[in-house]
Each structure stands twice: as structure tokens, then as C-alpha cells.
């Protein structure tokens, strides 16, 4: 049975007339454009016509956008795969076994995973370009790249939003987990393949929406969109709310799909005790996503209505702090959504690279789970500057305590490293660097959890540097580690070890030089969201910018290297690292079932002692 047709089985093209349709992506764009035009016109010219209104108003843009996204989803294939069968029509959807499958609705988890990987990488580069423009502006204390501070702030907002919702939240979950979680579970499909196919296509829609927000006007709030400022700018923020809605829905669907995959699609013998660490990590973040993403979606819908109806819920006559609280209620779990899969991957990669039994595995699992549980208790540490004194101590307490379960990830990896036979490869290097970076991020986090220190460092470049240490320093570095680690599985080819190490050292040095200095510039009085700043900070900012450019080039170097080796690298065997998790025992080719028959798991995946067989769970015929 084809893995592709999971749930809707049957491969039989012989006696069917093939229907000809335009390439799905083109058709999606077309339907999106038509949807927007029709509904925008309907609202702004007919239903809600006001004198002197422009052709696109806040209300009409919202309705038109909804129509456009629906048109886009239907166009790329939801029409044939979901809507028509839902009303009882037969499914007619041809998925060619070539590059075209990446540009259409697909139910194969490997295709979906790769689609996510491409889309996230693209958005990382675009949002990174925005960061380069910001750093360019900050080279000089005066305005010189942007024509006005509002344009700079809009860029900051776009950068932050896309990085958070399309890179941070998605890269390791929508991308690598969609591809590898079913493989690690020894399954040929994810739990709800059609939903999974839909989820990816929401992501480019969301990214495009956020990048197009300047068409509606500037927005100066940054990615947190604090009210009441959000209500005062021109209308660009409408597309922020809508774009985030699309991107977060995508993440929500992925979370539901992967949770069910981990629970229901495990191969025979893959008991909870044997669940791979990455599985635990993804399970933890998925639960966080399922709870907190709907929370922020509702908050943003209320904010959007507040803006377009308009209401005054979060203005002076309402309650500005309520927005802030609702935002951070989600905002803090969000950072664990980003970093927990990275922790899990350290614990996945190091035992393989060290050929060493995983140390204190149960503490690692405990750590991931407790970080998840605690993450709902610490959110208000983003609000020390505007809360009542009595609220400070509990939030400070939980914030400091969360470093305990976080530390367990270090305990596990360091224990595994001790006495290992470490292969000093590029993924190893990236994991070690990622651990160093997160250490810095964590130490500065302890400082920030102290209210008295927080009152000085909040809203300065100190905080900016702290969270970039956690998102770039640890999550992006781990993302690259995973890319190098799994490249042989993704492409059947190996990267070049020298170039890989060069890339790692390059981004490590550039990253630490740029963001390390930001702590100090923050302490010296550099606050956030400023395109113009006092002259005395210029030297330091100039130096930061130089290293930031170097960092940008370093990322580019790594991506080019990976892409190149994806196509031209030296072919390698099934299992070049001698890993024991199940993905190393199948031949994952998109469009083809990975395991036939399904593997049967007999031992855990992390035992490298002498008396266990070299591969613990050779896929056995049942």
C-alpha cells in the first residue's frame, strides 16, 4: 500500500481519465486573488460603503483576506482532497512522483516535512534580511537606511513575527518532526495525513500576509502588538493579526497530528519506556501548542475586532493590561515551544555521536515534562515593570525554579558525553555550541528573573540579546545540527566535514561576538525599538552590526553548503552514524512507504553496552 494514500488507499490510474488542472500553486494564487478582489469589493463598495473610504478598508481587507486564504487552500488541493470528498464526491488528485509533489497538497508526511523545511528556510532568509537591514540602520546613530523611524519599527515587527511563528515554532516541529517523528515511531504515515497536508499550506499564506502588511500601512508595535498603540497606527497591523492567525493554525494542526502520531502510530514493541527523546520533546511542545495557541488566536481575534469594529476594550477606558496579560500567557509558553525540541535533539544526537548509552534518561524525560508544566506559571516575568509589587515574588520564584528541570537536559547530555567515544562531527559541534549558547541565555535569564535587576534591563538590548541567545544560539544552532545529522537520511548523501565545521565555527564566532556585545550595550543604556539613539552608543553598535553581517553570511554559507551537498554530496549508506532509532532502518523516499513490513522493536534505542546487539531493533518480518 502506498504511504501516500494513507487512509484513502488504492493506486490505480489505469482506467481513469486524468483531469487536467493548472499547477496547484498557480491555481491557488489565482483563486486567492479572485477571492480577495470579490470579497474586498463586496465589503468596501457594497455592504459597508462609507463616503471617502479607500478601496481597501480595514474591514474589507479582513474579509477579503479570509476569502483569499480559503481560495489559496482550495486551489493548492484542499478542494479535491478535502472539500469534494467531504460532500460525497470521489477523490481525484494525482500526485506525480517528481518535484511537482512539493508544490501541491500532499498527504505524505515526508513531503509535508520537506515542504515545511523549505518554507521555513525561505522565511528565515527573508526575515534574516530584515534583520540585516535593521543592523545596517543601527550602524549609525542617525537615521540613514530607513526614511523614518516607523519604517524601522515595521521591519522589526515583521522580523520578529516571522522568526517566531514561522521559524522558531515551526522549524523543528513542522519541519523535522513531520518528517522524522513517523519514521522514529516506525510508521508509514502520520496520524491524520489529510489534515497534515492542509497545515503546511497555511504557513506560506501567513508569511506572505505578514510581509505584505506594509501595503496596508506601517505598524510600530513590534511582534507583541501591545494595545493601545496597536489601535493608533495605520492599518498594517491588521495583516499582522491575520498572518499570525494563519501561521499559528498551521502549528496547531501539526501539534494535533503529531500528538496522535506518537500515541497511536507506534510500531509494535515501541512502548512508552522506549519512546525516543525527540518523541518526548515533540509530545511536550505539542501539548503546549494545543493549549496556548488557541489562547493567542482568540486574543488576536479580539484585538482585531477591537480595531476594525471598533471597540475600546484595551484602551484607557478599557484595560490595556488585559491585552498584555493575555499576550504573555501565550508568549512565555511559546519560548518553550521553541526550545524544548532543541533540548530533545541534543539528547538524541549526542548518544549516537558518542556511541554511548544515554545517561539518566528518565531525568531527561522528567526535565522536558516539567519545563512544559511550569511554562504556564512564569509568563508574568515579562511584566515586572507593570505589575503590582505583590505579584512579583511568585513569578520570580517560578521563573527561577524552571531552571531546575531545564538543567536536567544538561545533566543527561554531560553524563552521556563523559567517557564517550565521541565522533567530532559537524552535528556534534553544533550541539555543543548550542549548549554553550543556551547556557549564556539561561544565566542571563536567571539575572532577568530577579525583579530588581529586571527593572533595569527590561526593554533594553540586554533582553534582546538574552532571547536571541535562546532562539538563535540554541534553537537555530540545533536546527543546523539536525540538518547535518539527518542530511544522509533526507538526501542519501553526506556533507563535507571540513566545510561543515568551518560553517559551525563561523556562525559561532559571529553570533557570540555580535550578541555578546549586545548585553553590554543594553546595560549602557541602549533601549529597544529605536532607529535613532544617543551618539555615545555608536561605536559599540557599529561593531555589533559588523559581526551581525558576518553571522548573516555564515548562515547563508551553511544553507548553501547543505543544499549543495543535498544534490552533489558523496552518497552514503543507510546508517552512517550507526544510530539506533528507527529512522535509520528505513529508506525514506517521499512517495514510497518507508517500512514494509513494519519494524518490531525489542529494546530501547539508547543502549550501547557490549552485550546488546549492534542494532537493537532490526526491522523484523512479522
Amino acid at each position, binding site marked *: 500500500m502506498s504511504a501516500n494514500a494513507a487512509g484513502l488507499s488504492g*493506486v490505480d490510474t489505469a482506467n481513469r481519465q486524468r483531469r487536467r488542472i493548472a499547477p496547484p500553486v498557480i491555481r491557488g494564487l489565482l483563486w486567492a486573488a479572485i477571492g480577495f478582489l470579490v470579497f474586498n469589493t463586496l465589503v468596501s463598495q457594497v455592504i459597508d460603503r462609507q463616503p471617502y473610504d479607500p478601496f481597501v478598508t480595514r474591514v474589507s481587507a479582513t474579509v477579503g483576506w479570509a476569502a483569499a486564504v480559503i481560495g489559496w487552500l482550495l486551489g493548492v488541493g484542499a478542494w479535491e482532497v478535502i472539500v469534494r*470528498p467531504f460532500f*460525497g464526491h*470521489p477523490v481525484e488528485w494525482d*500526485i*506525480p512522483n517528481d518535484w511537482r509533489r512539493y508544490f501541491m497538497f500532499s498527504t505524505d508526511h515526508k513531503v509535508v516535512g520537506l515542504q515545511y523545511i523549505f518554507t521555513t528556510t525561505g522565511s528565515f532568509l527573508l526575515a534574516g534580511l530584515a534583520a540585516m537591514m535593521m543592523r545596517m540602520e543601527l550602524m549609525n546613530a542617525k537615521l540613514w537606511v530607513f526614511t523614518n523611524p516607523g519604517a524601522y519599527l515595521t521591519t522589526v515587527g515583521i522580523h520578529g513575527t516571522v522568526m517566531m511563528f514561522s521559524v522558531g515554532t515551526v522549524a523543528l516541529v513542522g519541519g523535522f518532526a513531520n518528517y522524522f517523528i513517523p519514521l522514529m515511531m516506525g510508521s508509514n504515515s502520520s496520524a491524520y495525513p489529510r489534515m497534515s497536508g492542509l497545515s503546511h499550506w497555511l504557513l506560506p499564506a501567513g508569511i506572505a500576509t505578514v510581509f505584505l502588511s506594509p501595503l496596508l500601512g506601517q505598524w510600530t508595535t513590534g511582534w507583541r502588538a501591545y494595545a493601545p498603540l496597536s489601535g493608533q497606527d495605520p492599518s498594517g497591523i491588521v495583516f499582522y493579526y491575520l498572518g499570525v492567525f494563519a501561521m499559528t493554525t498551521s502549528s496547531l494542526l501539526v501539534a494535533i497530528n503529531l500528538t*496522535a502520531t506518537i500515541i497511536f502510530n507506534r510500531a509494535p514493541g515501541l512502548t512508552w519506556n522506549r519512546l525516543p527523546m525527540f518523541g518526548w520533546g515533540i509530545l511536550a511542545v505539542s501539548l503546549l501548542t494545543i493549549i496556548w495557541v488557541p489562547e493567542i488566536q482568540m486574543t488576536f481575534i479580539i484585538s482585531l475586532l477591537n480595531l476594525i469594529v471598533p471597540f475600546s*476594550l484595551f484602551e484607557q477606558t478599557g*484595560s490595556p493590561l488585559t491585552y498584555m496579560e*493575555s499576550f504573555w500567557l501565550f508568549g512565555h509558553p511559546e519560548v518553550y515551544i521553541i526550545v524544548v525540541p532543541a533540548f530533545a535533539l541534543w539528547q538524541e544526537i549526542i548518544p549516537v555521536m558518542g556511541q554511548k548509552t544515554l545517561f539518566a534518561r528518565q531525568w531527561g524525560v522528567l526535565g522536558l515534562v516539567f519545563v512544559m508544566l511550569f511554562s504556564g506559571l512564569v509568563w508574568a516575568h515579562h511584566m515586572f515593570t507593570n505589575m503590582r509589587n505583590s505579584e512579583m515574588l511568585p513569578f520570580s520564584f517560578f521563573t527561577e525554579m524552571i531552571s531546575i528541570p531545564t538543567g536536567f537536559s544538561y545533566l543527561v547530555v554531560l553524563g552521556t558525553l563523559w567517557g564517550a567515544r565521541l565522533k567530532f562531527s559537524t552535528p556534534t559541534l553544533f550541539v555543543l555550541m548550542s549548549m554553550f549558547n543556551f547556557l549564556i541565555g539561561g544565566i542571563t535569564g536567571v539575572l532577568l528573573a530577579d525583579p530588581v535587576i529586571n527593572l533595569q534591563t527590561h526593554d533594553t538590548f540586554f533582553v534582546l540579546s538574552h532571547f536571541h541567545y535562546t532562539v538563535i544560539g540554541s534553537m537555530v544552532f540545533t536546527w543546523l545540527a539536525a540538518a547535518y545529522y539527518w542530511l544522509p537520511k533526507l538526501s542519501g548523501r553526506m556533507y563535507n566535514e571540513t566545510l561543515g565545521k568551518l560553517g559551525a565555527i563561523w556562525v559561532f564566532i559571529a553570533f557570540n561576538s555580535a550578541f555578546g556585545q549586545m548585553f553590554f550595550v543594553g546595560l549602557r543604556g541602549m533601549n529597544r525599538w529605536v532607529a535613532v539613539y544617543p551618539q555615545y552608543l555608536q561605536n559599540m553598535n557599529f561593531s555589533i552590526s559588523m559581526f551581525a553581517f558576518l553571522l548573516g553570511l555564515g548562515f547563508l554559507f551553511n544553507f548553501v553548503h547543505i543544499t549543495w551537498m543535498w544534490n552533489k554530496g558523496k552518497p552514503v549508506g543507510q546508517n552512517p552514524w550507526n544510530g539506533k532509532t528507527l529512522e535509520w532502518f528505513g529508506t525514506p523516499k517521499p512517495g514510497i512507504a518507508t517500512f514494509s513490513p513494519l519494524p518490531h522493536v525489542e529494546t530501547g534505542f539508547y543502549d550501547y553496552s557490549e552485550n546488546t546487539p549492534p542494532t537493537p531493533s532490526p526491522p523484523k518480518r512479522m
Partner: protein
Amino acid sequence: MSSHNTYTKTSLRIGPLSERDLRKNRFGMSLYCISQAVPYFLLINIRFVIAGNFVPVGLNLWLGGIIPTVALLVGIIPLFTARAALQKDDIPRVRSHVMTAMLLGLIGLLSLLFPLWFHNFDALSPFGEIDLISLGVASFYTIIALIVAWGVYLRLGKGLIRKETGWGIEATIWVYAFNAIAWTALFFTLDLL
């Protein structure tokens, strides 16, 4: 392996779900309910932060209140009887019961939408804002429930749903009942507490 992976006409003859798949689908539905309950919690929370216990005098308790609550709650019953009828493979009966649920849902929807347009209290008071948003949210989920029921109704008509493949009916029950119960809770805390 042919060069195309294709869903064919035959693919819609979905076989009966295995016990595991059934559990998997139910699990997915419960995740849907858990995640979509969160917005309701947020709405209730914001209502108390912004408006306290205040309820305007001009509020019509029937429209956008008792009528949709009763209609939606009662609408759950014919769906269960429809499932029972499906066990006997009595398709016409299943259809008529699903239709009854849809009609009740429609009544609920209309009575939610009506006060959304014509409300005789100040929309720009903290309570008014939250009340209107709540009505909008409830209408949205009611529409979703109606669409799900409608699809099942059409599929029943085409003979695609049978005793062994009754998941569609159960899915409708999940979505429909979730909406009814969530709205009832919202109505209760918003207008009655």
C-alpha cells in the same frame, strides 16, 4: 509502483475503521475540543476583568440567550438517535434525524445572529463588547457544526455512510455537542451569573 500516487474513485469505499483507528479519531476529536475550549475560557476571563458582574438591563435574555441554548442542546438528541438508527442501517431515518439537528442548529444560529445586528444596549460598553464578541464566536462554531452535519447529510444521501462506516455521524456529534455545551457555558457565565 506506478509513477502516480492517486486517490481513485474506489478509495471512497472506506473500509470499517479498526478499533485503533476509532480510538485515534476519538482522540483527535477530544484534542479539538480541548484546544477550542481555551478561547471560551479566555472570553469568560476577559469578561470578568473588563465588566465584572455587570449585565445591562436592556439585554434580551431570549434572543442570543435561551433560544439558542435550548435549540443547540436539544439538537444533540436527534444526532444520537441518528447514530442508533445507523446501527440498524435505517438510512432514511438517519437522514431525517440529522436534518432535524441541522434545523435546530439553524434556529440557534439565527437567534445568535439576530442580536448581533440588533442589540438594544450600548455596544461600546465593556459588557457590550464582550457580549457581541461572544455571540460572534458562538455563531462561528455553530456554522462549523452545521457544515459538518451538512456534509454527513449529503454523504448519507449518496449511500457512502453505512453501519460499519459510521464515523461521520460520530464526528458530527463531537463537533455539534462541543459547540452546544461551550455556548451554554458561555451564556451561563455571561448573562446569568
